């Protein structure tokens, strides 16, 4: 067993402190939105979690490409870790969205392009996990999951565009131009924007920290498997 690297310890503590700061900013510094009230505060972590979900799946697809080129199982571990983290954060994104949508849209769920795409993306990566479960040979499992991570990631923007042409969105686009048909849109004050950007930064650091831990865990799991084989011999 190697002990926890010092840099990782520093990263852990930084993540923890920054997360507390982000919470304080969300609850005490960012102004209360006039129309929506306190429920609007879900927005900061909602966007940040969605952002981490997207990065995770992108990392998984890139790790998949590198794995197929280099055939080094290290990259499979990176891809697998990223997918697991991405699933968790996309789930947070969808659930916080539903919490906000209930009072604002008067429904937990609508068949809106963004909601639907996020959920289909979640299903793609559930399928990824099931694919991994179904294959015993580790080398083959790594190859197949690399391929599926690439194919799945490419399909996500296509899904988004096809549903986007299908329906006009009611999901607010807070940054940049806004669709007049969006419900629950608002103009951000500079403090709100700062809080949002800080939340995204914190979640990105959290992502890096979790990735590191997950990869270490994966390495230990491989060690355990090796040791088990040794005992059997």
């Amino acid at each position: 067993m190697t002990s926890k690297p010092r840099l990782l310890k520093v990263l852990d503590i930084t993540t923890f402190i920054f997360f507390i700061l982000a919470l304080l900013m969300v609850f005490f510094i960012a102004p209360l939105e006039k129309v929506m009230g306190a429920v609007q505060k879900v927005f900061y972590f909602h966007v940040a979690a969605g952002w981490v979900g997207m990065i995770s799946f992108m990392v998984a697809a890139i790790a998949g490409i590198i794995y197929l080129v280099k055939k080094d199982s290290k990259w499979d571990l990176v891809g697998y870790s990223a997918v697991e983290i991405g699933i968790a954060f996309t789930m947070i994104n969808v659930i916080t969205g539903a919490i906000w949508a209930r009072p604002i849209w008067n429904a937990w769920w609508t068949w809106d392009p963004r909601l639907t795409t996020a959920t289909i993306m979640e299903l793609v990566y559930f399928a990824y996990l099931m694919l991994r479960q179904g294959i015993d040979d580790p080398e083959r499992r790594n190859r197949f999951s690399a391929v599926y991570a690439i194919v799945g990631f490419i399909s996500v923007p296509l899904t988004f565009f096809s549903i986007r042409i299908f329906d006009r969105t009611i999901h607010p686009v807070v940054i940049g131009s806004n669709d007049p048909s969006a419900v629950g849109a608002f103009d951000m004050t500079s403090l709100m924007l700062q809080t949002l950007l800080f939340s995204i930064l914190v979640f990105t650091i959290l992502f890096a920290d979790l990735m590191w831990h997950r990869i270490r865990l994966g390495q230990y799991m491989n060690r355990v498997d090796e040791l088990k084989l040794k005992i059997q011999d």
Partner: protein
Amino acid sequence: MEHKTSFYKALKAVVWKDLMAELRSKELISGMLVFSLLVIFIFNFSLELSPSTRAAVTAGVIWVTIIFAGTIGLNRSMAVEKDRGCLDGLLLAPVDRTAIYFGKSIANWIFMLIVAAIILPIYSLLYNSNVFSPGLILVILLGSEGYVAVGTLLASMAVQARTRDILLPILLFPVIIPILIAAVKASNGFLTGIPFAELTNWIFLLIAYDVIFTSVAFMVFDAIVEE
């Protein structure tokens, strides 16, 4: 001295092999056909397809039927190769492996088109409404191409897994949702007589999907069959 059969020759041989095998056994197309008919009947009772509701859902019924039947066909076409060790034989042949992928895809595409060509007139007959239009045929050609391009790739992964019977639809369906949306919307447009110019968005989306996924599958297929 390395001797490689040319790409087109190998591709033609794989397609020919699949078509001949099907001509002799007829198990794939007959299975897909009976299944499609059953799906249409199930839809008839579950959706209560009365003349008034029918027009709105025809495109959906046709596409769900094609996609479900396609899953059966894809699974079968790869399982046959796997079970009798034919895949290993194919891979040992000194040909470009992407020729095998394209050969299998084209054969699967042909099977799907044959099934579509039979169920469309049957649907028209059963519901006494003509569903034929050049636009719809174009949509079926494009839609099934994209479906088969991803489907053949994922089916060749799924058959090598322990859970292969349930794995293919789970892997395939979330990825082909863009095709389903575009195909259903475009088919619906053609069936309700919307002019072609207003449906070009969907046609372009289908073409984009076909091009992207055929080329991705082309690039990664090697990684799936190498042992």
